[in-house]
C-alpha cells in the first residue's frame, strides 16, 4: 500500500512501489498496464512503419522491381492490420486512457482492474499470433478480408490473421467495457458529467463504439474462418452466398472503428489546447456532445465504403446523407478548438505544436472526406490513392499527431521527468513536414486515377510517387526522434513536479509520478473543467 508521501526523490510512487517481473506482469494497477500497452504498441508501430517504408520504396519506380507482387500485397496487408488493430485502436485509449481516466475522475483504479490486465494479455496473445503470421509468411488479404478472395482464393495465413484480430478485438471490447463502467460508476464526489474533462467524453464515446461494433467484426471474421476452413457457404457466391453481406458486416464495425481511432485523439487535443491557451475550451457542451454524436451517427454511414460495390442506388443515398450528417459534429469540434485559441495566451510548447498540426491535418482529412461522401465523386476516387491520402490524413495526420501531443503532454506525469523541449519541437516540425510531403501528393495521384494496392503502376504517376517516398523517409526520422529522447529523458530529464504545465484536471493535482492509488484521499470536485482563470496565468515550466 502507498504510505503517506511528500514530494521527495525517495517518495514511493507507482513505478517504484514494487520491483521485479512479477510486479509488472501481474499488476492490476491501471498505470502500469498503461505502460505495458505503451511498450507493446510502440513495438507494433515500428513494425507497421517498417512495412510502410518498404511499400514506399517499392513505389519509387513504376516497375515492380524491389519486391515481388505477392510480397508487396503482404506488405500492405500486414501494414494495415498491424497499424489498425495493434497500434491505432489501442493507442490513445489503452495507453493514455488507461493511465488517465481513473485519475481524471478521481478514482483509485478502473472498475475492473483484473479485466484490464486480461485485456492486455489478450492483446499480447493476438499480437503474438499476428507476429507468428508475419514471420511464417504473412497474409495478403488487405486489411479488409474481402470475400471470396480471402475465403477461397488466397493461400496465405488468412485464418491465423483473422484469429489474431478476433482476439485483439476482445481486448478492445474489454477496454471499452471497463471505461464505460468506470466513467459511470467511479467518479469522485462532485465530478458530474458536466465537469468531466473532454478527454473523458471522447473516450466514453470511443468505448461505446468498441463495445457495440467490435462483436460484429468478431462474428464476420468467424464466418470468414468457417467458410475458409470447412467450405461452408456463407459469403462465397460459388456456394450461393452474397459477398456484399460480408462487406456490410465488416464495415458496420470498420467504419465506426475509424472513430475509435480518431475520437480519443480529439480528446487529447481538447486537453492540450486549453492548457497552452491558458483558457477554457470554447463551448464545452458542444464539444462534449459532438463526441457522443459522432459515436451514434458513426454507425449509420458504413455503406459509404460500398458505393461502387453493387449496393442499391437508394440505399447509397441514405448512407451518403448520414455521412454528411456525421461530418457536422467534427466540423463543430474544429471550429471550437480554433475559437479556443482566440484571446488566449498561447505557448508554443511541443504538445501545442502537435495539437495545432492536428487541427490542420484533421481539417484536410475531414474536408477530403466530404468529397468521398458525395456519391458521384466517390465513384471516381474510391479505391484510388485519394482514399489512401484521405485516411492517412485522419489516422496519421490526425490520430498519431494527437497521440504524440498527449504523450508529450502527460509524459511528465507518467515518468516524472521532462522531455527535452527543443528536440520535441524539432521532431514535431519534422513530422509535420514529412507527413505532408508523403501524403499530399497521394491526393493528386488518386484524383488522376492511380488505384490503391498497386505494386506496379503506369509511368506517368512516377513523379508524385517519388515525392511521396521522399516524404516518408523524413517522416520516419521524425518518428524515431521522440523514441530516442523519451528514453533519454527517463534518466536525464529534469524533474517535472506535480503540475509543470499549470494545467487543470485532477490528474495534475497528484504527484508525478502518481502514487499507486493515485490520490492520498478521494478528491472532492467543486470546480468546472478547464478553470484556467483560477489557475496561474503562466505555464510554469516553459520558460
Amino acid at each position, binding site marked *: 500500500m502507498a504510505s503517506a508521501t511528500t514530494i521527495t526523490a525517495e517518495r514511493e510512487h507507482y513505478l517504484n512501489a514494487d520491483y521485479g517481473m512479477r510486479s509488472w506482469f501481474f499488476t492490476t494497477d491501471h498505470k502500469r498496464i498503461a505502460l505495458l500497452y505503451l511498450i507493446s504498441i510502440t513495438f507494433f508501430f515500428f513494425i507497421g512503419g517498417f512495412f510502410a517504408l518498404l511499400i514506399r520504396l517499392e513505389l519509387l519506380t513504376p516497375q515492380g522491381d524491389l519486391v515481388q507482387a505477392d510480397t508487396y500485397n503482404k506488405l500492405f496487408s500486414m501494414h494495415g492490420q498491424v497499424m489498425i488493430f495493434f497500434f491505432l485502436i489501442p493507442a490513445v485509449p489503452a495507453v493514455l486512457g488507461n493511465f488517465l481516466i481513473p485519475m481524471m475522475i478521481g478514482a483509485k483504479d478502473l472498475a475492473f482492474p483484473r479485466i484490464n490486465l486480461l485485456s492486455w494479455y489478450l492483446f499480447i496473445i493476438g499480437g503474438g499470433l499476428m507476429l507468428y503470421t508475419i514471420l511464417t509468411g504473412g497474409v495478403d488479404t488487405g486489411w479488409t478480408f474481402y470475400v471470396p478472395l480471402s475465403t477461397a482464393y488466397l493461400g496465405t495465413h488468412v485464418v491465423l490473421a483473422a484469429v489474431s484480430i478476433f482476439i485483439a478485438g476482445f481486448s478492445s471490447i474489454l477496454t471499452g467495457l471497463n471505461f464505460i463502467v468506470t466513467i459511470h460508476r467511479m467518479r469522485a464526489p462532485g465530478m458530474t458529467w458536466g465537469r468531466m474533462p473532454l478527454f473523458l467524453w471522447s473516450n466514453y464515446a470511443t468505448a461505446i463504439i468498441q463495445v457495440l461494433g467490435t462483436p460484429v467484426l468478431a462474428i464476420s471474421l468467424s464466418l470468414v474462418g468457417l467458410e475458409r476452413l470447412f467450405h461452408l457457404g456463407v459469403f462465397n457466391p460459388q456456394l450461393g452466398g452474397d459477398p456484399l453481406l460480408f462487406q456490410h458486416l465488416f464495415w458496420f464495425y470498420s467504419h465506426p472503428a475509424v472513430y475509435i481511432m480518431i475520437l480519443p485523439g480529439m480528446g487529447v487535443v481538447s486537453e492540450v489546447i486549453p492548457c497552452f491557451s491558458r483558457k477554457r475550451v470554447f463551448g464545452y457542451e458542444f464539444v462534449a456532445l459532438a463526441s457522443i454524436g459522432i459515436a451514434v451517427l458513426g454507425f449509420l454511414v458504413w455503406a459509404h465504403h460500398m458505393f461502387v460495390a453493387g449496393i442499391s442506388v437508394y440505399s447509397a443515398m441514405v448512407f451518403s446523407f448520414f455521412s454528411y450528417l456525421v461530418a457536422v459534429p467534427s466540423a463543430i469540434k474544429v471550429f471550437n478548438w480554433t475559437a479556443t485559441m482566440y484571446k488566449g495566451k498561447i505557448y508554443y510548447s511541443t504538445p501545442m505544436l502537435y495539437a495545432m498540426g492536428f487541427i490542420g491535418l484533421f481539417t484536410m482529412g475531414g474536408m477530403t472526406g466530404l468529397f468521398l461522401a458525395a456519391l458521384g465523386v466517390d465513384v471516381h476516387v474510391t479505391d484510388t490513392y485519394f482514399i489512401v491520402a484521405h485516411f492517412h490524413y485522419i489516422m496519421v495526420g490526425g490520430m498519431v499527431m494527437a497521440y504524440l501531443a498527449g504523450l508529450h503532454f502527460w509524459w511528465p506525469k507518467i515518468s516524472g521527468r521532462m522531455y527535452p523541449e527543443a528536440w520535441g519541437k524539432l521532431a514535431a516540425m519534422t513530422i509535420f513536414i514529412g507527413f505532408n510531403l508523403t501524403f499530399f501528393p497521394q491526393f493528386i495521384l488518386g484524383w488522376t486515377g492511380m488505384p*490503391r494496392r498497386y505494386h506496379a503502376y503506369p509511368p506517368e504517376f512516377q513523379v508524385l510517387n517519388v515525392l511521396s517516398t521522399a516524404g516518408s523517409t523524413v517522416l520516419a526520422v521524425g518518428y524515431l526522434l521522440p523514441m530516442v529522447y523519451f528514453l533519454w529523458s527517463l534518466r536525464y530529464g529534469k524533474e517535472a513536479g506535480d503540475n509543470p504545465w499549470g494545467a487543470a484536471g485532477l490528474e495534475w493535482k497528484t504527484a508525478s509520478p502518481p502514487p499507486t492509488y493515485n490520490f492520498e484521499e478521494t478528491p472532492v470536485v467543486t470546480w468546472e473543467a478547464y478553470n484556467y*482563470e483560477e489557475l496561474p496565468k503562466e505555464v510554469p515550466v516553459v520558460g
Partner: protein
Amino acid sequence: MFPNFPIWPVRAATSASNLDALFIFLLCVTGMVTLLIFILITVFALRYRRTLVEKSTPILGSVALETTWSLVPFGIFLIFFVWGAVIYFQERTAPADSMEIYVVAKQWMWKLEHADGQREINELHVPVDRDVKLIMTSQDVIHSFFVPAFRLKQDVLPGRYTTLWFHAIRPGTYHLFCAEYCGTQHSGMIGSIVVMNPAAYEAWLSGGGGEGSLASTGQKLFQQLGCGSCHRSDTQGRGPNLVGMFGKPVLLEDGRTVVADENYVRESILNPGAKIVAGFKNIMPSFQGVVNEEQLLSLIAYVKSLQGSQQREPVSNRPAVPNVSAQPRVK
C-alpha cells in the same frame, strides 16, 4: 498519349464533365474553409502568443456562434449531397437504347464481348458519341472496372451482373484499371479503352474475326442444351415461353413479382428452383457447372433477342446498319 506529370485526368466522357464540375465546386468550398482554419490558427497563434498577451480572456462559448457553424456547414453539405446523388443516379441509369457490351473479369484479365461477336482481352474498342452499357460479371473474385478518363468505376461481382454505362466524347486511348484488390497480379489487371471515330470503329469492326453475333452463339447453345424442348415459342411448353419476356415483370409461383433482367435469367439457368414462374413446375435441371460465364452471357443475349414483333428494336453494335439483328430469331 499520357503526359508525364498529370495533375488532372483526361476528360473523355460526359460523365467526366459532370463530375469535374462538382469536384471543382467541392475543391473551392473546402479549400476556402481549410484556408480559413489555417489562417485563423496562424493569426491566433501569432497575435495571442504569450509574449504579447498578459493574461488570457475567459470566454465560455457562444451558443449563437456554435449553432451557426453547425447549421451553415450542414446547409452546404446538403448541396454536396444532392449534387453528388444526382450525378450518381445518372451514372447508374443507362439510357434505354445503349449499345451493350459484356464483360467477364477473371484473375487477372478483362474479357470483353461485343453483341456482334467480337471478343477482346484487356482492350475495349468503342465508338465515340454512343451510349455504351457494360454488363459485367466475374469468374472468381471481386474486381472493379475503373476508367479514370470517364470518372467511372463499378465493382464486378462473381455470381451477379453489375452494369456501367458511358458516353465517350473524345477519341483516344485511356487506362482501364482493376480497382478492387483481387490477388497477386492485381496491378497487372490493366488494359485500355480505345475510343474511336465512327469510321475508324467501322473499320475495326470489319477487321475483327467475330464468329457470328453473341445472340446467335447463344441460339446454338440453346439448341445444343435442348432448352427449346420445354421453352417453346407457343403456350404448350413445359417451361415458360421466352419470347418477349425479357425486361418485363414476371409473376412467380409464390405470388411475388420480379423483373426478368439479366440477373433473373442468370439465376433461372443456374438455380431454376429459386424463382418459379406462376403456373409452372420445378422440373428444370440446374446448369450450374454446365455453362461457363461466357456461355451464360450468350444465352442471355439470345433470350434478349427474342422480342415479339411489336417490341422495341434490339440493340445493335453497328450504328451504320441499325437493324441487323432486329429480325426475331425464333422460328
